[in-house]
């Protein structure tokens, strides 16, 4: 019985290590091949438009609603201690340090990540990647690398927009609806938010999340079984793995940044 458990565990570790090795090799090969893209920036800008622009609506609307809720919940707590004038600071810090990068990355995984996985998986199933290879065109450079770089660039921009919309949402509910003083709302925010400590750390987080979520999405598509079921499973794995990875990385980064 114990032997069987050890055997199962050994096999699982071996499979995990081999998968990790393959993913690292793909990442390395993609980064190396991506160096050649500086001569063809158009491939990257097209993908930034695809990944960034198409995720814009969901990011902006979500940011606004998260700001609404933050203002209500923040006011409820701060009001108990007579500190409702700090509502602007609470909303801004929560969004810039934590909620902006994390929720953006989760939404990104669900919107752009699944789209990337499905697109690359279907290209594989339709033999488009094999056709590209037969035309002496490296799919890692032509298909994967531009999408990866675009994800890296798009994520911090989307997170910043999410945060900005969240602050706007907090202002609308806190100041316009509840009646918190407008001057203290903005001045506390201006005085309490540090450019490097708060906004800088948020940007670093969103770049790391962009790296993880985009690579998971394109890798899952690239390694998908070339069947409808295979692509469907890969798309599901993208959401699950990206979400878990983002939350785990958030914990690690927050712990590091607090030190």
């Amino acid at each position: 019985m114990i032997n069987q458990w050890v055997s199962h565990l050994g096999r699982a570790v071996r499979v995990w290590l081999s998968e990790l090795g393959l993913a690292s090799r793909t990442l390395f090969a993609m980064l190396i091949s991506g160096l050649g893209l500086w001569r063809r920036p158009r491939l990257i800008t097209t993908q930034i438009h695809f990944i960034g622009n198409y995720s814009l609506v969901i990011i902006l609307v979500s940011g606004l609603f998260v700001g609404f809720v933050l203002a209500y919940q923040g006011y409820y707590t701060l009001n108990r201690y007579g500190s409702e004038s700090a509502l602007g600071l609470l909303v801004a810090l929560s969004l810039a340090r934590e909620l902006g990068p994390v929720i953006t990355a989760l939404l990104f995984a669900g919107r752009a990540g699944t789209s990337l996985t499905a697109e690359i998986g279907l290209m594989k199933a339709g033999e488009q990647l094999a056709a590209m290879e037969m035309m002496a065109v490296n799919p890692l450079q032509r298909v994967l690398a531009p999408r990866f770089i675009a994800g890296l660039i798009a994520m911090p921009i989307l997170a910043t927009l999410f945060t900005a919309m969240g602050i706007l949402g907090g202002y609308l509910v806190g100041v316009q609806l509840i009646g918190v003083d407008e001057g203290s709302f903005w001045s506390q925010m201006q005085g309490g938010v540090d450019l490097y400590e708060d906004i800088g750390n948020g940007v670093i987080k969103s770049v790391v999340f962009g790296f993880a979520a985009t690579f998971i999405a394109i890798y899952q598509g690239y390694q998908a079984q070339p069947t409808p079921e295979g692509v469907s499973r890969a798309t599901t794995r993208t959401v699950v793995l990206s979400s878990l990875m983002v939350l785990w990385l958030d914990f690690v980064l927050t712990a590091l940044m607090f030190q």
Partner: protein
Amino acid sequence: MNYNGGLLKTQLAVTNLVEINNLHFAYGERPILSDLSMKFPRNKVVAVMGGSGSGKTTILRLIGGLIAPSAGQVLLMDEAIGKPDSAVLYRQRRCMGMLFQHGALFTDLTVFENVAFPLREHTTLPESLLHDLVLLKLNAVGLRNAANLKPSEISGGMARRVALARAIALDPQLIMYDEPFAGLDPISMGVTANLIRQLNDALGLTSILVSHDVHESFAIADYVYFLSEGSIVAQGTPAQMLASEHPYVQQFVQAKPDGPVPFHYPGISLAQDLGLEARHD
């Protein structure tokens, strides 16, 4: 004589554009091809025929370097096919074109952009010249006026012709066709078969045709290999194959439902399965 000139002359002097010697290939433990040797002479159309699962498409993938052999070698112009992702392999692939079974067109690009794709990737031709070149390639397959359509707006037969135009865009020396007639209506099939032969002769190509369509393949091929379970069971000209008394060739050519390739998947008999007869284990 410069080096490139010498190399070109040496390459042209090679009679067989592609040679396969004592090739073995397996997916894990499952053997697909065993001890296979084939020759594909220059400027000829060679058909590789056999039933489903006989390893035909695997041969094309091995020649294209999409997979690597377990043993033996594949030679292109007397040079072994490079390892996956190697610079040698990418150089060799520029001499090849491949027509996939369903065309494998890029669905987000128009017909024009599909054919222009390899030219944009590998050349720095001015846009006006590229435009004319693409239209000439499309004209060769009769689809110049479909240049602005998307792959979803054209039929399966047309998609394969577009893929053919794309495959010849860089003027390759070798072109491989994977089941080019599968799922086509008789008119499209005839058009595709004529195109394969005409392009081969007009452009001085060497063509490898993987198919199980006897009529169309025999009409255009110079030489035929018959493959069964990963080995060559018969070879010769189409006329020789029609006259062959080999049971596999006869079953295949005459489309007999039973023969060396059994109708029933191997296993226990129906009587045994229904419990009407004692099992012999």
